């Protein structure tokens, strides 16, 4: 146990609370959280919320009330399956397609899909060139 000691004003040594380290438990193992790790998580949450908003907009544009749209799309994106009645055989085809893609994205967690697509589209180029491009444009 590492404690931090400090001299207080009376020159008496007092024990100061150890600062909380940025650790978390995952699968029973203690892992150190680096800022990078936090950033990846935040990116994921941001992507999720952003996608949610876009989806709700699509439903609202199709003429459904906002509460119903939010309910239905949250259900789809999180692959839940609850419904307020929008999802049915009579639903417009493009909304069905939106739902299909959404469920797929929600289950595979965005980043895998995006990376895969980017990889497939960029693999046709010489890999050195790709690296060049990235370092320049970033």
């Amino acid at each position, binding site marked *: 146990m590492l404690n931090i000691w400090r001299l207080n*004003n009376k020159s008496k040594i007092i024990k100061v609370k150890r600062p909380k380290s940025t650790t978390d438990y995952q699968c029973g193992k203690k892992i150190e959280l680096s*800022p990078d790790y*936090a*950033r990846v998580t935040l990116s994921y949450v941001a992507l999720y919320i952003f996608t949610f908003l876009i989806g709700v*907009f699509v439903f609202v*544009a199709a003429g459904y009330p906002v509460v119903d749209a939010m309910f239905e799309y949250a259900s789809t994106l999180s692959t839940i399956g609850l419904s307020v009645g929008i999802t049915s055989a009579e639903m417009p085809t493009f909304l069905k397609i939106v739902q299909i893609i959404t469920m797929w994205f929600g289950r595979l967690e965005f980043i895998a899909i995006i990376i895969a697509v980017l990889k497939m589209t960029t693999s046709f180029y010489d890999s050195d060139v790709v*690296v060049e491009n*990235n370092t320049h444009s*970033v």
Partner: protein
Amino acid sequence: MRYKKIIRGRYKLVFNYIGVLTMGIAVFLLLPLLVLPFYPQDISYLNVFLLPSLVFLVLGFLLWKVTNTAQEQVSLSLKEGGIIVLISWLVAIIASAIPFMLAGKLNFTQAVFEATSGWTTTGLSVVDEAQTSHIFLMWRSIMQFFGGAGLIVVMLSSIIHPYGFGLYNAEGRSDQLLPHVKRSAKLIMLIYSGYTIAGVILYYIVGMGLFDAVNHSIAALSTGGFSTRPASIGHWDNLGIEMVTWILMLLGTTNFATHFALLKGKFKTFIKNGEVRLLTFLVAVFVPIVSYFSLTELYSSLPDLMRRSIFEVITAISTTGFSLDTFTNWNAFGVLSIVILMLIGGGTGSTAGGIKLYRIYLMYKSLVWEFKSYFLPQNAVQKNYIWRGENKLYIKPEYIRETANYIYLYLITYAVGVLIYLAHGYDLMESMFEFASSLGTVGLSVGITAADAPASILWLETVGMLLGRLEFLVIFFAVAKMVKDVKYLATE
């Protein structure tokens, strides 16, 4: 007891600043009296402003005198700056509410609401503009003028001598235009006042009366949105006036540092600026989709439709809150679009509110960088930067995390606020609209905010506006520090 003595010394300094600021607020209370020569019938309200002004002048002077012990100049930390900002803003709001109460126009809740709405440049209002005398209309605009620039910036540009950046940075208008804090503050006031005067002239040219021109110019540039007419800008139904308002609102929502780059003729850096790009993008996307999905039901001619949609999109994204007409007949798509725009808000270091374009832009960029990094060699070093003002700003991972934390804090507060509205029995769309408007200091309303709204809703909005304007963290830090220090001083 040396440590305690140091803490006491610091708080003396903090209260010394607060004393000076209180005296400044007392002077602001005298400013609306300038309309008396033009509108002598308002002379009956002379005491309503003179009395609180005198009281706060004396209070401020006493506070300043008591704490004014000769000590070496020390620089203030961000947290101490936060305490000064928080307390002086509360003093400003209470002082500004008193004239409304003394005149018997509003009760305590309503008066505090109105003053907060003014100082935070929101523009939600519980007074009926048609029944309000000129002196009070002017007072509302004056609050927005100073609230827009920020109490501290105004004071730094005139009387206070700053030591360190703590105070300047604590108010959420933190871009430094020049190396020197005081000169930065002066420059901001110069740009701000210059635009305001230009705005008055433009309004006058397109046919607004002088009194309305002054008030609307201030309200547009401070992205406040208090109008002198119940129907806001819609009162005139004049395209010229609307176009002047577009320009002023966009100027108001632009970072002062960006203005500085623009005024120096650095047009290229202006274009590179992330906020400017995002703003242009959002306006370009939302104007057509709001027109198509929402307004085609309401308007039959294309020019009318575009006029309405351009105006409302700009007023929402710039967090101004002027309006042409009611939102109650909009369909869900239009209202949700406006809610999203209000949540995003205007530029950092401008007079706008909301999450801020800059933070959204940074999150977008960080996503892009994230994906790019997957394709880079494992040990590649990325130098990520964005353009801010006229400088390249290199982005550290910690910085992205801070920004993301801010956004989550904002959204959580938003969700809690909306739930409180829902608990009062309002429907979801109204609740989302009204609280986005309060938290983002916008000022658009679908009708919940009115003199007869429940007091709990008015207080919720008051807190929301203050949190939104002072950007959460400063308030939390300040309160946490005060509690901690008081606890420490109370021992033994």
